[in-house]
């Protein structure tokens, strides 16, 4: 095999793994959109907030330390560093509480409003959470480590180093273990979500609400309960995404911008399709890496910033309903 070919495989593998991460973020959007028709602008900030909470608990930060100091003059900034597993559980609890509050304080009052109003509400929510997260945990960049292995896989490098053709310079394939683990975890998460929604009463209720609100009510499903559940699941997905991206890039404001990566994925996959979010994520992940690898050097690189959007725009023009979305036919 030629070294170029091996490099291409490496690029594709890395693209697939990046794609899984994009898909994970997009999944959070799709879940909420399907159940309530809301485009949740705050999905990215939810990932940031979840990661901040996790790090904060893990490192034993005192929440609102700055505020406490400003008000009472007490300088408390450290109490008890929770073991990782406990910190994870508490963070999940916090995200469920968050879902509950969102339903109580926002959704409940906006039932039957125009989608644009709900969208605006989530913009407000995003900025509020961003500020709230800062106030609670501070705004400095934090390192997140929950024990997921990271760094290049030596095993793979060793195993592949001899694959190149005789006489070519090749140092083996480079794949970050963190990406591998992230992929495994994301796949497990998606599979369990699918099983839950297929084979349980609550899962069926989730699908029912996604299909038809009136019919769902008529069989006794409370929309408000379902919304709490859906936002909890989206919160959990945000936590997982926050952990993956946070472990890679550190926990900081820019984490919330991963939502921007999900946007083209959604345009590709459609806003209502879970398989669409996954396949869309993979296409964008692989597409942008391969494009950068093959075409990037010819046009000065840095194509990863815009490639996904151009691809999504092309899709919008030729297939506005997305890969798996139902064709939109206006009733006349």
């Amino acid at each position, binding site marked *: 095999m030629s070294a170029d070919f091996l490099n291409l495989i490496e690029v594709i593998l890395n693209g697939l793994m990046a794609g899984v991460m994009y898909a994970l973020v997009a999944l959070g959007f799709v879940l909420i959109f399907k159940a309530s028709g809301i485009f949740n602008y705050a999905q990215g900030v939810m990932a940031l907030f979840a990661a901040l909470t996790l790090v904060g608990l893990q490192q034993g930060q005192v929440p609102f330390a700055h505020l406490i100091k400003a008000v009472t003059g007490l300088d408390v900034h450290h109490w008890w560093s929770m073991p990782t597993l406990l910190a994870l559980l508490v963070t999940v609890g916090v995200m469920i509480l968050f879902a509950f509050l969102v339903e109580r304080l926002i959704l409940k009052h906006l039932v039957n409003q125009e989608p644009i109003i709900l969208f605006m509400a989530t913009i407000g929510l995003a900025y509020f959470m961003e500020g709230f997260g800062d106030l609670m945990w501070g705004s400095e960049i934090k390192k997140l480590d929950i024990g997921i292995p990271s760094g290049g896989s030596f095993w793979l490098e060793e195993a592949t180093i001899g694959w190149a053709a005789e006489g070519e310079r090749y140092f083996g394939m480079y794949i970050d273990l963190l990406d591998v683990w992230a992929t495994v975890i994301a796949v497990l998460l998606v599979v369990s979500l699918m099983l839950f929604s297929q084979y349980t009463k609550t899962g069926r209720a989730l699908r029912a609400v996604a299909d038809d609100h009136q019919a769902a009510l008529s069989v006794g499903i409370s929309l408000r309960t379902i919304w709490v*559940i859906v936002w909890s699941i989206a919160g959990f997905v945000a936590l997982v995404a926050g952990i993956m991206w946070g472990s890679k890039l550190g926990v900081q404001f820019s984490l919330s911008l991963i939502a921007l990566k999900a946007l083209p994925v959604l345009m590709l996959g459609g806003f209502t399709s879970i398989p669409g979010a996954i396949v869309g994520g993979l296409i964008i992940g692989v597409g942008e890496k391969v494009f950068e690898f093959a075409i990037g050097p010819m046009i000065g690189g840095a194509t990863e910033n815009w490639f996904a959007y151009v691809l999504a725009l092309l899709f919008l023009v030729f297939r506005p309903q997305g890969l798996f979305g139902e064709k939109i036919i206006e009733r006349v």
Partner: protein
Amino acid sequence: MGSMEGPMSETVTADGRTIGGVLMEMRGITLRFGGVTAIKDISFDIREGEIRAIIGPNGAGKSSMLNVINGFYHPQDGEIWVRGKKRRALRPHQIAHQGIARTFQNIALFKGMTTLDNIMTGRFTKMRAPWWQQAVWAGPAEREETANREIVERIIDFLEIQPIRKTPVGRLPYGMQKRVELGRALAAEPKLLLLDEPMAGMNVEEKEDMSRFILDVNDEFGTTIALIEHDMGVVMDLSDRVVVLDYGQKIGDGTPADVRNDQAVIDAYLGVPHD
């Protein structure tokens, strides 16, 4: 017109079914949408075990009445009494939990789901296992799922829809969708079943099947049924009593025979102009 406000005691019909006391009573219901009065001061009752038809021309307020009964609409005026107790304002999903199931005029199925899952969703009010047990597929949740699945299979047999068990309902022909929707409502084992034009758009054969199912449900399970229907032949065959609406008002109430010979009803159907 002949009044049918019968005694509270039980009566036995010609075909041997028992009709009991009043299950639900509408008292002076008025429902407005902005300037439109969809229902104007309507009172009638539904007795235990009967098939009660609601008929009337287009826009008469029939569907609105069903929507009031199952809580989609909240009337500006009037009360609903259930078994002698005044019902407080409830949300639709709470009313479902009280044993009222329904179908819709414009089929409202869960399009992405199979026939089986649609009907299974109809069991929602009967399943109690908490979500965390469902999530790990724990013993009680699993047993509950299996038991309810068996009940759903019986409904599928009853409605003769075994061949489409696993078909996503969006792909089924119209008549079959109506049948699945009936199945979903039956799955709740309701004490009151509301059917909004269960036979609209069906061919003769499909109508006969649907009529048979409705009669069997009423006969075998004693389910009380309130149904809206335009086909007078079907109404005459199925119903014990008929209430007739026109422009949001009640213009007739009685046995099918009474109602058919009532001048006001005939006028409404022939389109005699209102003055």
